[in-house]
């Protein structure tokens, strides 16, 4: 078989999937807001990855001679009270936000998925205990609870991530539980049990994979919220420690200079606003595109 034949054979076998992707792409192109969201998120991720190699100044080093400079060609976004270049700080801060998003998604998605599947599959007392625990977490406003955790653990990047994850997993647990309860009653689970499969095997191979997709969709929908929470904690001084250029902390730094040196707080604030908007637009767009009722 030649290479071209192999490729065409490969394409032929996967045609339904490719058709599906084509349809998804078509729907995406028709949703303007989703396109805007996608572009913002892609730019954000690119800036986070390659930005740090192109920034004109060290984001951490202080330069008292250049302090409180307004935006100019030398300093695009001006400088703060320690003479640090705000443009460089905003760009290198995007990497911190990406880190927070990824790690929070893995931790809270993982905890939620595991606990949700266990609660849904076993039911009864285990379900009651786990679900009442999630109810307790959900009873608090999420930001207040995150603040409490962050204050308890002490401000640092890792503790911010832990605090946000501890608050966020409940939603995923509920989703995974609902899905696990649905899958558990399917006849094929009974058939597999009749073949003598153990509980661990059924849960790990036959139930959990079915519960991943709603959790993944919800994770992408909530990424904007994660950034907002991280920035809020930073602003309140409960998040990432200075001098690390976390956006929320930067907004907080410039607060006392806001009347005369507006640029210190404004540029990181704009960055937060745009990125959160981008994630929310993408999330809403994805939800519409993935909706099976709208797909046909």
């Amino acid at each position, binding site marked *: 078989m030649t290479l071209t034949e192999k490729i065409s054979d490969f394409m032929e076998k996967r045609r339904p999937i490719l058709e599906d992707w084509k349809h998804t792409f078509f729907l995406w192109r028709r949703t303007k807001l989703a396109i805007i969201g996608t572009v913002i998120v892609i730019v954000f991720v690119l800036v986070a990855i390659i930005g740090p190699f192109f920034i004109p100044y060290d984001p951490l080093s202080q330069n008292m001679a250049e302090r409180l400079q307004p935006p100019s060609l030398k300093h695009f976004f001006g400088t703060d009270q320690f003479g640090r270049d705000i443009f460089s700080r905003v760009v290198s801060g995007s990497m911190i936000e990406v880190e927070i998003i990824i790690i929070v998604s893995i931790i809270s998605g993982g905890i939620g998925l595991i606990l949700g599947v266990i609660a849904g599959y076993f*039911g*009864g007392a285990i379900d009651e205990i786990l679900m009442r625990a999630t109810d307790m977490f959900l009873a608090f406003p999420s930001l207040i609870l995150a603040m409490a955790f962050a204050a308890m653990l002490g401000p640092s990047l890792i503790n911010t991530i832990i605090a946000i994850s501890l608050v966020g997993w409940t939603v995923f647990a509920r989703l995974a539980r609902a899905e696990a309860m649905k899958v558990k009653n*399917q*006849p*094929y689970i*009974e*058939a*597999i*049990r*009749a*073949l*003598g*499969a*153990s509980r661990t095997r059924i849960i790990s*191979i*036959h139930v959990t*994979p*079915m519960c991943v997709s709603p959790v993944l969709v919800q994770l992408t929908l909530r990424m904007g919220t994660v950034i907002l929470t991280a920035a809020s904690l930073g602003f309140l001084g409960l998040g990432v420690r200075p001098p690390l250029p976390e956006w929320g902390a930067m907004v907080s730094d410039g607060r006392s200079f806001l009347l005369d040196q507006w640029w210190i707080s404004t540029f990181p604030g704009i960055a937060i606003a745009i990125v959160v908007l981008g994630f929310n637009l993408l999330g809403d767009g994805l939800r519409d595109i993935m909706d099976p009722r709208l797909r046909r």
Partner: protein
Amino acid sequence: MKDAILTVKNLKVVFHTYRGTVHALDRINFTVLKNERFGIIGETGCGKSVTSLAIMRLIEQPGEIVEGEIVFDGKDLVKTQESILNTIRGREISMIFQEPLSSLNPVMKVGFQIGESIAKIKNTSIKSCRQEVFEALKAVDLDPTRVSNLYPHELSGGMAQRIMIAMALSSNPKLLIADEPTSALDVTIQAQIMNLLDDLVSKMNNTVILITHDLGVAAQFCDKIMIMYAGTVVEQAKTEELFDNPLHPYTKGLLKAIPKVGNRDKLTGIPGSVPDLVNPPSGCRFHPRCPYAMKICSVEKPPLTEMNPGHLVACHLYGDKNG
């Protein structure tokens, strides 16, 4: 006399629902002999499937086995631990379900799923079972290379049921429970599947419990038939004996309700419908629908008594003979 492989004694299963307790099985007794083909026949909701699930110990909350014994190969399955049950299920007792298409995991390839069951029995990895998977598929007349790469939604009902049979028989189980294996299939496929099952079981000498509501299928396949009604056993006999000389009024009614080709007379059914098992009728559970009901029928539950050799019936009409 041949050895018994499965003895069910006084088995009582209930389901706790918000309406009250459903008495799904009311102290049923039966014995399946080695290499026998045992048919269980009854209407929807009479407890056929519950019986099979109870034997597999797959009754889940809110259901419960409240009393009785299920002795399989010398072990009482009711008292066996879950971890030991997992070594019996699939290895010594296998089961074929009524809806083959929904009994396969929809997102996994067929070959992987058969491999999973074989790998479990042989305690090896799924990949190393490729040869056995192919043989199992060949045994049920499917093209192994093509079918093992298909997903369940690409199969027809008949193919899926063949695959279920392949999975169930891959371990050469001592006992195979087939729970209405053909009721989701159309008639021509039914015949094919029953013939296939017949061939394979005769080759491998398995004991089979066939659960069905189709008297024709049971007549062709089974050596012995047990008739169930509303969670009780009403009659049990050798197949010929049962069809030639039915004793219980319910069995008689069932046999009259079979349409015959060329017969233009009106079919006679059994009046009334299956009783609500939350409040089952007192005494004999069939008495409200029975044309021969007597006073005693609503008071006392008739015991299962042997009328002719091997022919058991639970009915007060024949009560005097034995005492």
